[in-house]
């Protein structure tokens, strides 16, 4: 287990290091102009300068805090609403019939498309941005929760019934613990979706945030800053996924073993 983990960490590191080396060669060869492919050094400098002096009056730290806050609130909102919605839909045909059409219709719509509406309804503040992330992530949580309930092995219910469980006990003692693994899978997918929606959310008249930074820097052909912001988004998304995975290990140690 230990050597497997270390070797995986090592291989990831080697792959990334290789990519940086390749990237250096490509940018040094000047096949592409520097504004299209800045060198790793230039990106590092852009990062440091944005971190210490800021870009358009906002430092990288402020952008990170703003984006982390939006993603976290939107994501947590999607989990807090999505899991009970999924449970209710799986348990009740009526609830399922009421909600499912909206879910099916809403799912293929890219979050970008909601922006004009949200601006008209909710203005330009933080609420429409967070709401957009929530709306983008919600279906993932609902669908994985429903899937979790549907895939509970029938025998788990029969064992409980045979020991005298009533209906509500089947739900609390069997369904709830049984869906946990699928909820965690949903959260791991969902956190990616939430970050994906962020850039769209920060198109709504934002003045700070990583998505806003990407957008502004791109408009001014500051590609090195765009690169730096993208890498930071990737790292933050990865760190949040890692956090969820760590919680998962403690919350459901039986995953994959039963």
């Amino acid at each position, binding site marked *: 287990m230990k050597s497997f983990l270390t070797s995986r960490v090592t291989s990831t590191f080697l792959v990334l290091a290789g990519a940086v080396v390749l990237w250096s060669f490509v940018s040094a060869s000047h096949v592409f102009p520097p504004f299209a492919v800045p060198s790793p050094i230039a990106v590092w400098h852009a990062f440091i300068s944005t971190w210490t002096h800021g870009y358009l009056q906002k430092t990288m730290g402020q952008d990170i805090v703003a984006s982390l806050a939006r993603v976290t609130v939107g994501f947590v909102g999607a989990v807090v609403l999505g899991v009970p919605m999924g449970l209710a839909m799986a348990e009740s045909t009526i609830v399922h019939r009421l909600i499912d059409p909206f879910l099916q219709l809403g799912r293929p719509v890219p979050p970008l498309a909601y922006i004009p509406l949200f601006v008209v309804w909710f203005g330009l503040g933080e609420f429409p941005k967070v709401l957009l992330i929530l709306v983008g992530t919600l279906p993932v949580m609902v669908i994985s929760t429903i899937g979790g309930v549907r895939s509970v092995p029938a025998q788990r219910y029969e*064992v409980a019934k045979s020991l005298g469980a009533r209906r509500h006990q089947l739900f609390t003692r069997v369904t709830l613990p049984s869906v946990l693994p699928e909820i965690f899978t949903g959260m791991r997918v969902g956190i990616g979706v939430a970050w994906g929606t962020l850039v769209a959310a920060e198109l709504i008249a934002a003045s700070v945030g990583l998505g806003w930074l990407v957008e502004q820097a791109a408009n001014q052909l500051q590609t090195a800053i765009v690169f730096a912001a993208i890498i930071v988004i990737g790292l933050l998304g990865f760190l949040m996924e890692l956090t969820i995975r760590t919680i998962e290990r403690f919350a459901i140690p039986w995953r994959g073993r039963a």
Partner: protein
Amino acid sequence: MSLLSLHDVSLRFGNDPQRPSVLESISLEVGEGEFVTVLGPSGCGKTSLLRLIAGFQESTGGEIVFDGQKVSGPSAERVVVFQQAGLYPWLNLRNNVAFGLKLRRRKVDWRLVEETIDIVGLKGYESYAPYELSGGMQQRAALARALVMSPRLLLMDEPFGALDALTRQRMQEFILELRERLDLTIFFITHDVEEAILLGDRMLIMQAEPGRVTFDEDIRLPRPRSEATTLTPEFQVIRQRALQTLGRVSIAAAGFTDLDTALSLNFDGSSSAREQRA
């Protein structure tokens, strides 16, 4: 009055009249304290019969009376032990065993839980997670989870079917000992002829399509029994009769014309390791 009685019970899935009934006119009485084993070819309806008695499913004909009352759903008086232990992975052994007691009331008699864990020989493993236990230990835990409810009837569906030969043999001896110590009524399904004879006070053999009970006799082997009992001539006589009955049943089920072929095969079509050893 018997603890369990089945009157002309039948079961049919779907509305297609072309399909044979899964069970047809099964009538049966099981007395308090009896250990009934049920043998039959694969697909003859053993599990279906057990599920009717458990109350998981309603029969399409006849009635099932348990302790003077018509069976209309599952109850902790008739606890089922399945082939797969089915322990809850989020609970440790102690809490798995206490599961049924917790459903009844908030306060659990933990002494009873500890005692039952001791009875099935798992003392010291109370805090283990199910996936930390071997297959045989898991099955003992599942048995403890059932026993702790003091069920009037224990329904067991091939409980040792998923275990390796050696563990199965140990579990059989364990059940025999348990039977000497506790006053249990057991309805025990198996596809192992020797297991059925060794454990049962009485053995039923079922035939398929439609599922019926074609053999129902007391097994008059002295108790206490052990694996050594399987070597006695009395045991072998019963075994031969069972195999012959099963042979006829299997011929009917599998379309065999040759009795010898049918007899050399186990009734699910595979030739069993036990047969080869014998």
